[in-house]
C-alpha cells in the first residue's frame, strides 16, 4: 500500500506544481488537446471512409472494360461486346452508359447513369438526395437538361433516393437509355464502358489478360482494383494527409522542445529544495513524470473523445470546407464508426510518450544535484 500512497502523494504535489502556474499549463493543455483533436479527427475520418467504401464496393462489378484512345477514355463500340463474349469463361457482357452532367447555373456536377433496369421509362429520372437539394427539386418536378446540341430535354423526377444511401447515390441521376443518348449525344452502338460477368471469379485476371490481348486498346478494371483504390485513399503518402501528419508531428516536437530546453531557474531551485528536505533523485523524477503525464493524459483523452464526437456525431463538420473544396454538391452522410484501436494506440504513443519523456529528460541533470547545493541557494 505504501507504494500507492507514495505515488498518490507525489501526484498530489505534481498537481500542486501544475496549478501554481495555472495559466501556462491550461494553455498547454488546450494547445495539446487541439493538436490531438485534429490528428485523431483526420485519422478517424479517413479510416471510417475507407472501411465503409471498401465494404460497399465489394459489391461493385467484377470487371469493367474501358476503351482508351491516346491515353484518354473513349466510347466503346458494341462489336467489342461480341469479341469479349466469345472468350471462354465470360458469362455475360453489358454495355454501360454513364457520364457527367455539368449544370452551369448552380455549377454542380451530376453523374448520369443508365441502370440495367430502369423501371420508370423514358421521360423520367430518379435522383439522389444531393441532386434534389441542389436543384431544389422533388418528386413530380420537371428538370431541364441541356443536350449536347444545345437543345433542352425536360425530364420529370419520378423518385428521390434515400438519405441513407447518399454516400453512393447523392449526385446520381438515373435515366433511360434513349434519354441519356439524347442528352449526351452518344451515338447508338457505343457505350461508356462494358460490364463483364464471368463464371468463375478466380479466372478474372486470366480473362482480363485475354481481353487485353484480343482488344489492345482496352483497359479492364477488376473489382479488387476498385476496392484497392479506396483502401489506399487518404494514404499517408498522399498530399494533405501527409502535410497534416507532418504538421502535427512538428508541433509536438516544438512542444516537447520547449519543455526540453532546460528548466527555469525557479524550477531548478525547487528541485534543489526538494532534494534538500529529503527527496531522492528518483522521487524528483517521478514528480516530473507525473507532471508530464497529467498534461498529456488529460489532453489525450479530451482530444480523442472530442474527435470521436466531431467525426461521428457531428459529421466531421470542422473539416467540411476542406473536403468540399470547389464542389457545390456535397453529400450529407453520417459515417459508420469504424475505428481502429491500433491507430488510437499509435496516437497515444506519438503524443503521450514523447511529451512525458520531454518533461523528465531536462529534469535529469537538476534532479541529480547534490542536496548540499540547497544550502547555498
Amino acid at each position, binding site marked *: 500500500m505504501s507504494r500507492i500512497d507514495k505515488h*498518490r*502523494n507525489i*501526484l*498530489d504535489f505534481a*498537481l500542486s506544481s501544475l496549478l501554481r502556474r495555472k495559466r501556462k499549463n491550461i494553455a498547454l493543455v488546450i494547445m495539446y488537446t487541439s493538436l490531438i483533436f485534429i490528428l485523431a479527427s483526420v485519422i478517424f475520418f479517413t479510416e471510417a471512409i475507407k472501411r465503409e*467504401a471498401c*465494404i*460497399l*464496393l465489394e*459489391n*461493385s*462489378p467484377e470487371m*469493367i472494360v*474501358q476503351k482508351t484512345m491516346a*491515353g*484518354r*477514355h473513349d466510347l466503346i463500340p458494341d462489336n467489342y461486346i461480341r469479341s469479349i463474349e466469345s472468350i471462354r469463361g465470360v458469362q455475360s457482357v453489358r454495355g454501360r452508359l454513364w457520364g*457527367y452532367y455539368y449544370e452551369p447555373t448552380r455549377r*454542380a*456536377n*451530376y*453523374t448520369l*447513369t443508365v*441502370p*440495367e433496369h430502369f423501371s420508370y421509362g423514358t421521360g423520367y429520372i430518379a435522383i*439522389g438526395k444531393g441532386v434534389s437539394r441542389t436543384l431544389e427539386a422533388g418528386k413530380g418536378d420537371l428538370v431541364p437538361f441541356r443536350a449536347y446540341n444545345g437543345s433542352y430535354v425536360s425530364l420529370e423526377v419520378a423518385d428521390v433516393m*434515400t438519405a*441513407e*444511401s447518399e454516400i*453512393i*447515390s447523392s*449526385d*446520381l441521376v438515373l435515366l433511360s437509355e434513349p434519354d441519356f443518348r439524347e442528352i449526351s449525344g452518344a451515338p447508338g452502338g457505343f457505350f461508356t464502358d462494358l460490364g463483364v460477368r464471368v463464371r468463375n471469379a478466380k479466372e478474372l485476371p486470366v480473362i482480363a489478360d485475354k481481353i487485353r490481348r484480343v482488344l489492345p486498346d482496352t483497359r479492364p*478494371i477488376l473489382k479488387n482494383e476498385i476496392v*484497392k*483504390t*479506396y483502401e*489506399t*485513399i*487518404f*494514404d499517408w503518402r*498522399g*498530399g494533405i*494527409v501527409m*502535410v497534416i501528419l507532418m504538421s502535427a508531428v512538428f508541433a509536438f516536437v516544438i512542444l516537447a522542445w520547449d519543455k526540453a530546453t532546460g528548466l527555469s531557474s525557479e524550477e531548478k531551485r525547487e528541485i534543489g529544495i526538494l532534494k534538500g528536505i529529503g527527496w531522492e533523485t528518483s522521487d524528483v523524477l517521478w514528480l516530473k513524470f507525473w507532471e508530464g503525464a497529467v498534461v498529456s493524459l*488529460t489532453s489525450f*483523452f479530451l482530444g*480523442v*473523445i472530442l474527435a*470521436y464526437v466531431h467525426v461521428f456525431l457531428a459529421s466531421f463538420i470542422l473539416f467540411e470546407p476542406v*473536403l468540399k*473544396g*470547389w*464542389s457545390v*454538391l*456535397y*453529400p450529407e452522410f453520417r459515417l*459508420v464508426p*469504424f*475505428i481502429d484501436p491500433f491507430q488510437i494506440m499509435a496516437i497515444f504513443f506519438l503524443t503521450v510518450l514523447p511529451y512525458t519523456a520531454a518533461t523528465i529528460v531536462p529534469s535529469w541533470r537538476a534532479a541529480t544535484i547534490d542536496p548540499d547545493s540547497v544550502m547555498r541557494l
Partner: protein
Amino acid sequence: MSIRKVDVFLLSISVALCLFAFIFVHASLTKKSELPALRENSKMVRTLEITDICLFTEARYTRHLSMADLHTPFQDHPMSLEHFPSGALITPPPHLRQYVQDR
C-alpha cells in the same frame, strides 16, 4: 476533511477512461444499428453497378477515382492544385500506377 487534489484528478481520469471505453461501445452499437442501411446500400451498389463512392463531386476526375484515365493532371501529379483539396488529398489509384509500370 476536504477532498485531495489527487483524488479529484484520479476521479476525472477514471471518468475520462470510462468515456473513452464508451466510445468503443458506442461505435459497435452504432455499427450494428447501421447494418441494415449498409446492406441496402450494398444492394444498390450491385444493382446500379456503382464503382465509386460519392465524395468529391467537383470534377469528373475526382468523382470516379477508380475509373479515371491516365490523361488527367490529377493522376500525374497528386498535388494538382486545380483540384484542391481533393487533388491534394488523394493519390492515383494503385491499378493506374501499375498500368504505367506495365507499359
